[in-house]
């Protein structure tokens, strides 16, 4: 059974968002990392890149597969977790601590389409 954390928002493509004012901190869920297995590479966007909700902004690579990471919100990348470049396994170790990017949201109402922890637990069963 994979872990789900209260207080975060979740997407159907298994990203989590922590909201901090106008900033969305984005990672992938414990379910996503356990499905992928050992993560060997994280393909991240550059700071200042802009994305629309639903765009893939990067990808995770495991030995066997690659999986795109999709932003649930529109906006501009203001930070990326460079620690993942050398240590992609941080996502396997704690998917909720290993954030991937921070995006300054242009439309916070896009968060309304996301699931809360209870709904996501049901969804990722």
């Amino acid at each position, binding site marked *: 059974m994979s872990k789900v954390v209260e207080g975060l928002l979740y997407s159907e493509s298994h990203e989590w968002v922590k909201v901090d004012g106008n900033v969305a901190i984005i990672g992938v869920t414990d379910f996503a990392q356990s499905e992928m297995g050992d993560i060997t*590479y994280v393909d991240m966007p550059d700071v200042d890149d802009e994305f629309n909700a639903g765009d893939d902004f990067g990808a995770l690579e495991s030995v066997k597969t*690659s999986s795109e990471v999709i932003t649930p919100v529109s906006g501009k990348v203001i930070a990326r977790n460079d620690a993942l470049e050398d240590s992609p396994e941080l996502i396997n170790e704690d998917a909720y601590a290993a954030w991937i990017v921070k995006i300054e949201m242009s439309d916070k109402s896009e968060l309304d389409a996301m699931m809360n922890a209870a709904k996501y637990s049901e969804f990722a069963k």
Partner: protein
Amino acid sequence: MDNQLKMTCLHDRHVELGAKMSPFAGFDMPIQYSGIIDEHNAVRTKAGMFDVSHMGEVFISGKDAARFVNHIFTNDVSSMPDGKILYGMMLYPDGGTVDDLLVYKEFAPDEYLLVVNAANIEKDYEWMKSNCEGFDVKIVNASDSWGQIAVQGPEAEKAVTGALGFASASSLGFYEFLNESVQGERVIISRTGYTGEDGFEIYASAATVCRYWDELLKAGVKPCGLGCRDTLRFEAGLPLYGDELTAEISPVMAGLSMFCKLDKSEFIGKEALAAQKAAGVSRKLVGIELSDSAVPRAHYPVELPDGTVVGEVTTGYHSISLDKSLCFALVDSAYAALGTTLMIRIRKRVFEGKVVKKRFYQTKYKK
């Protein structure tokens, strides 16, 4: 689970060990147990075992057996001593590949064992039958009555001679086999594998294979799934049917001409291969090493620095043993020379690579 899926004799054990299972070649097979990287490293440094009971075993016998096998097989079996094994392919008349396989020369006149890929058992068996007119041969598909375990790695010999008690196995050279009689049952021990390491493939009945699996597990041999079977064979430069060899990819294109004996009097596909060698092939399989750790995957485009597409990736990984991003790719022959700069498009970006030898990992076979 899909009811159509077949199970090997070791299926219950895989489930009990907590393997991640997935359909492969019509069988419900273990992809990984402890993890692909852990299993891969066990094979490179100690010993691992694979359930390869899904592979096909076809026995050919009869007065014309040698002539028939030579008719359908690219390598030359005419002077094979008993107990020897040859690698080669079966081809369509146009040079495309039906399958790649091992041919075992049995310890009996006019008898051969052909070991074929699981996904191709029916196709291969039909192919053999449809090409045997005029040959006095018996073709028996015995795939369902044989299980098989591959024990691979530097400590494989110790496991097979020790835990399984086959002292005779240490005398085998690479691509040699012997028969053991175990309570009246035939057990085949073959010094072969698909990992680039020393190792053995052991063929026996379902019950015996299960017993050997348990013994090897007790002896500390790590259960390994198809996930690391692919990463290991890839690093060792070995092709997988369906990726590097297909009905459209001939052995000449795949760089496997050394297993095709054009000096034989005949075999199906010989004229086509001879023509390909004479005129040159349009595409060739190459190895590519990337300068970044982004991972090339099957079907990603291979481009020139100016953006012209000249091929595609067939298999790619971030190599576990070499810690580099590597791939096999089928490219226009003009760009197949060692050292050629080629670009690989990975999602939205292109990454620079160069053509290198396909055997990325220095193999450690028993001489």
